[in-house]
């Protein structure tokens, strides 16, 4: 929505190692190590493998969505309906559970609902050419609204015992199924974005949709797939979250769209599209997870953490701008 100012591309790129050192990702790595160190001094309970494993649940579900969201934002769009997709697919799984279906069917229902919601977003945005921000604000209200119609002030509980494994099970030692899934998706999305034609197309669309159209990129199809992927990831996150909580309320995952977008932006993805990396998002997820976990150990209430996330979101964008300005002033 804001106006894109022309990007200045330098004549010669700096050396590989110097680029790596000065990158946003290295800065995030330093911050992550710093927070880890501070946390381990601040609380004696931090450096316990099981505590750390518990801490991963703070971010794994959100991070899975953040990977897909990163691609959407790099392509110059946004999806604000992800939290509502979680609510709707959780509600759909609850309905299936009440109808007496078994765990594999519940998972299929969760995935299918996520995909269907993503397809609706994608069709409205690419098919009708509507702005993604308004469409997903609309579907955000629609999807969660449907949950409210189905559930009202009720809740689904009594999920089968075998369903609990997705959110509460461990693959090996302290490594939960969710954490394993997080690692797997980090690799999958990293490869998809950085080593495939599809990934190149995503960057191209974010930098100049018209030019990419003229150079043979199927802009509409790529965007549609991106919204489909985001819906799918929200469906997967919904399975994990529902399984972890063991219940569904229409207010489930309320406000998560903000945290997911914050994670992506903190990870160095340009909110206007065109640049960003998956390793950055992974580091941002770790940082946000550790910070919320550290605050939790210090008994900071959740709503105060949300202030922190809001400040973080604005300052990660504001600080580089201020820093660039200060450097320009010094150069003159």
């Amino acid at each position, binding site marked *: *929505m*804001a*106006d894109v100012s022309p990007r200045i591309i330098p004549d010669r790129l700096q050396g590989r190692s110097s680029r790596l050192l000065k990158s946003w990702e290295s800065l995030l790595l330093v911050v992550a190590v710093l927070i880890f160190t501070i946390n381990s001094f601040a609380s004696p309970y931090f450096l316990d493998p099981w505590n750390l494993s518990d801490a991963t649940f703070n971010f794994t579900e959100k991070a899975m969505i953040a990977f897909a969201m990163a691609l959407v934002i790099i392509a110059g769009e*946004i999806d604000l309906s992800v939290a509502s997709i979680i609510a709707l697919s959780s509600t759909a799984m609850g309905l299936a559970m009440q109808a007496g279906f078994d765990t594999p069917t519940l998972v299929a229902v969760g995935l299918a609902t996520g995909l269907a919601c993503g397809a609706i977003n994608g069709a*409205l945005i690419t098919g*009708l*050419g*509507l*702005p993604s*921000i*308004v*469409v997903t*604000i*609309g*579907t*955000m*209200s*629609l*999807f*969660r*609204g*449907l949950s*409210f*119609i189905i559930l*009202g002030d009720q809740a689904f509980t009594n999920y089968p015992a075998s369903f609990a494994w997705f959110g509460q099970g461990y693959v090996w030692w302290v490594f939960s199924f969710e954490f394993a899934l997080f690692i797997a998706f980090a690799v999958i999305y990293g490869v998809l974005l950085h080593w495939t034609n599809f990934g190149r197309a995503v960057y191209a669309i974010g930098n*100049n*949709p*018209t030019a990419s159209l003229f150079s043979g990129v199927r802009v509409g199809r790529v965007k549609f797939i991106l919204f489909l992927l985001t819906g799918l990831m929200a469906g997967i996150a919904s399975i994990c979250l529902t399984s972890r909580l063991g219940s569904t309320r*229409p207010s489930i995952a309320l*406000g998560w769209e*903000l945290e997911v*977008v*914050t994670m992506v*932006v903190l990870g160095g993805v340009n*909110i*206007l599209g065109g640049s960003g990396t998956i390793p950055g998002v992974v580091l941002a997820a770790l940082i946000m997870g550790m910070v919320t976990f550290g605050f939790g150990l210090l008994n900071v*209430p959740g*709503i*105060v953490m*949300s*202030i922190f*996330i*809001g*400040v973080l*979101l*604005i300052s990660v*964008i*504001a600080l580089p*701008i*201020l820093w660039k300005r200060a450097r320009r002033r010094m150069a003159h």
Partner: protein
Amino acid sequence: MMKILMKNRELLLVVAIAALLVLITLRFPAFIEPANLARVYNDTSILIILALGQMAVIMTRCIDLSMAANLALCGMVVAMINSVAPGVPVPALVLLALLLGAFLGSINGLLIWKLEIPPIVVTLGTLTIYRGTIFLLSGGAWINAHQMSDAFKALPRATLAGLPVLSWLSVLMIALIYIVMTRTPLGRAFHAVGGNPHAAVYTGIDVGRTRFAAYCLSGALAGLSGYLWVSRYAVAYVDIANGFELDIIAACVIGGISIAGGIGSVPGAVLGALFLGVIKNALPVINISPFAQMAISGTVIIIAVAVNARAEKRKGRVILKKAEAH
């Protein structure tokens, strides 16, 4: 006939609202009585005031997601002052709410003007910051009706020439914003900045400053609504008006205000808000669960934005390819 309706959003909305009223009246004749319609208008007044502010912001190609949080924070602040010091005159509190709202709006505006951070990021961030601040101020406690002074609660309810002050205030705001939008340089600047920011610069308009003004305006109206909300419902807590920002945007989108900026009108915003208000008040009457309201707003937003896109496409020839890409 259809063509004229598609071209004139205000007329289309008047017809849609009339059709809605006819449908409701078939099931429940008392709905159409003037006294009830006045009640529906009064119930929609706050949404109308907020939609006017959001309209100015959207007009300049921005968006304000923090309006409901701003409203809740200003409402909580005046309610707390009133419960601690009931002697402070109510008009002073109204003014304070207005100024505090404008200040909170100006924070959004400054970040967008001076640092050129995308509006959606700024207001998404300030949304949570403002909400969290209410918790910090109140400690999560509620301010209930018995803690507020009678004068504090009475103002929006007092009747003047048959209508409550709340309704009159919204009428006043509609008139005021209408004059600003159509008769002042600022109003023209809102249109120009949204229509084509590059051209606006060449005509001597400071795009950033205009956006800043739009956010101050939306903030001030949110602050005023904060007092009105808290005194009308006689309660203040952290979550009041939670999610209301979507209703405000819905009202604007339904009212034909283009999210791409530059297109929109005061009557459109008012009619968009009234459309939602009629639906909201009719649901319980025709026995539909109030839980359905959220899904209905969502559907209406999507339909409205699709209709908007069609209407805008016919608006004329695109000369600049750059404008087409957005």
